């Protein structure tokens, strides 16, 4: 149920973004990341042009429901971060997992309620890992963790354009040390509140 809601939303987002790019619409279950323009300065006009994907054929045709802007009003590069507001809402993960545990959802629900009451603000979700993975693997795992938290936010009704992710892999541990007590504190998703400047 939860999954299909996410799917529907992502389908809408994709349909819009792909429609705007003039391509054939394709569904993709995870929610694409909005905000922050994808065009680096000085790398040529064709940068970022997508070509058709040959893998994983579409399993469902997208339908357009509602009007979601292609470029969000929110750009994390242009907002002021507050690392303390949600310090008590850090989400913890099991070893080598990127699944939000039932014990952690209450903390995310608090963030959802805050964002619903403060529509001009957004969040960045930091994904972190303990030191027991390899470095490149952990960078992807950290991103996957942040995205899992983001999926929860989006499913709970927060607009996708207000939730950004950033992975730090294992390079920003919350606590130093080389045992399970410290590792369990380092496998985490951290909310940073973003306020427009």
């Amino acid at each position, binding site marked *: 149920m939860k999954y299909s809601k996410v799917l529907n939303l*992502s389908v809408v987002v994709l349909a819009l973004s792909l429609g705007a790019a003039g391509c054939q619409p394709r569904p*993709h*279950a*995870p*929610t*694409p*990341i*909005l*905000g*922050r*323009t*994808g*065009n*680096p*300065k*000085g*790398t*040529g006009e*064709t*940068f*970022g*042009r*997508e*070509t*058709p*994907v*040959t*893998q*994983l054929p579409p399993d469902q045709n997208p339908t357009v429901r509602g009007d979601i802007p292609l470029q969000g009003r929110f750009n*994390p*590069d242009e907002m002021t971060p507050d690392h303390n507001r949600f310090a008590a809402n850090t989400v913890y993960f099991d070893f080598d997992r*990127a699944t939000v545990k039932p014990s952690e959802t209450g903390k995310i629900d608090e963030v959802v309620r805050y964002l619903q009451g403060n529509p001009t603000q957004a969040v960045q979700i930091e994904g972190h890992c303990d030191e*027991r*993975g*390899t*470095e*490149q*693997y952990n*960078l*992807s*795992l950290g*991103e*996957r963790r942040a*995205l899992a938290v983001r999926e929860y936010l989006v499913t709970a009704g927060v607009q996708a354009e207000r939730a*950004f*992710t*950033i*992975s*730090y892999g294992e*390079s*920003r541990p919350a606590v130093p040390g*080389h045992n399970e007590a410290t590792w369990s504190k380092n496998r985490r998703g951290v909310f940073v509140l973003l306020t427009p400047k």
Partner: protein
Amino acid sequence: MKHKPAFLFTCVLFLSVTARPPEAVAQDDREIDITHLGARRIPISLEGYTGEVLDALRFDLDIQGFEVTGADKAQYVVSGSNNSDVTGRLTDRVGKATLLSVRYTGGTLRSEAHTLSDAIVEKITGRNGIARSKVAFKVENGQNSEIYVADYDGHNAKQVTQDHTITRDPAWVPARRVLYYTSYKAGNPDIYVHDLQSGTRRAFARYPGLNAGAAPSPDGRRVALVLSKGGSPDIYVCDADGSNLKPLTRTREAESSPCWSPDGRTICFSSRHEGRSALFVVSVDGGSMRRLSTGGALNCTEPDWSPDGKQIVFTRLAGDFEICVVPAGGGAMTPLVAGEDPAWAPNSRTVIFTRRVKGKRVVSLLDVPTKQIKDIQQTSGSCSQPCWAK
């Protein structure tokens, strides 16, 4: 930054007597099967060298299949001096022949020593030496890390980035003094391409979410990378100017560490697609990803394809991290040594990797057939993510 090209050294051959072709001397070592471990180290002695030159020659030979030993036990003897310039005469004690007699001039003593050791390796084994090659790695100090380049033994290390943030995932463009890496300088993990010759760089991938793991193709014309802009970390490929971006995977799980087959047609990477991290391959033209059999090894990450196309070296997590190799087509894997994040040298024989020592990381070299390990000269800090210029 400028690198003095190796060809600037004037190599003066004042005597070169080869009693019989070097192939005859070392037939056993030329067609060595890299997975055939326990390969015999070739005993060689060094006579007349001192200080830095002696250290460099010993390091170079020890890590390339030789064992520096006393003259009485040696099959080959290198005699010479390092007064103002390095000279060397290589003799085969068994074959009673002089194989090489050279004097170098024009470089530092250290670079002359590396040039001599490359000549010795080539003369005896027929393989290209690696002593004049370059590596790049990440150096972490506190919360931040920067990219460094150095000689393959860690000497002459030079800091490439000054970003005062997390900088990581260095990768050389083959045959060019150009690096790709990821930096958080703009507040997000973005990929930059950095010309070491001119010292200029530009943003290469600044998509929303993760931009990491850039791996230039063997011909340098394309780049494989990890992006999460589609909602999950997937493998993408694009042209070297950033155009023609296309995803090669579309999973809900995390992918990482793309690397290229030497023919530029296949990408090998790590994915949790089937629940645990494993190695997969996918055609660079698209199509389905296919699991690469690693002979039952679980939790495999960080593959690197040997330049000769025959082997893939990777890290597996089995309690601790272990460097393993598997034939490029998949099959039985061979565990080598404790360590992680391996990358091949241009000779498809030596591997550079990371070891964890007392909470810190150090970069080491591994001679795969003999399993010899040597730590490179460490830059102050925690050194990891090494890669070799090819």
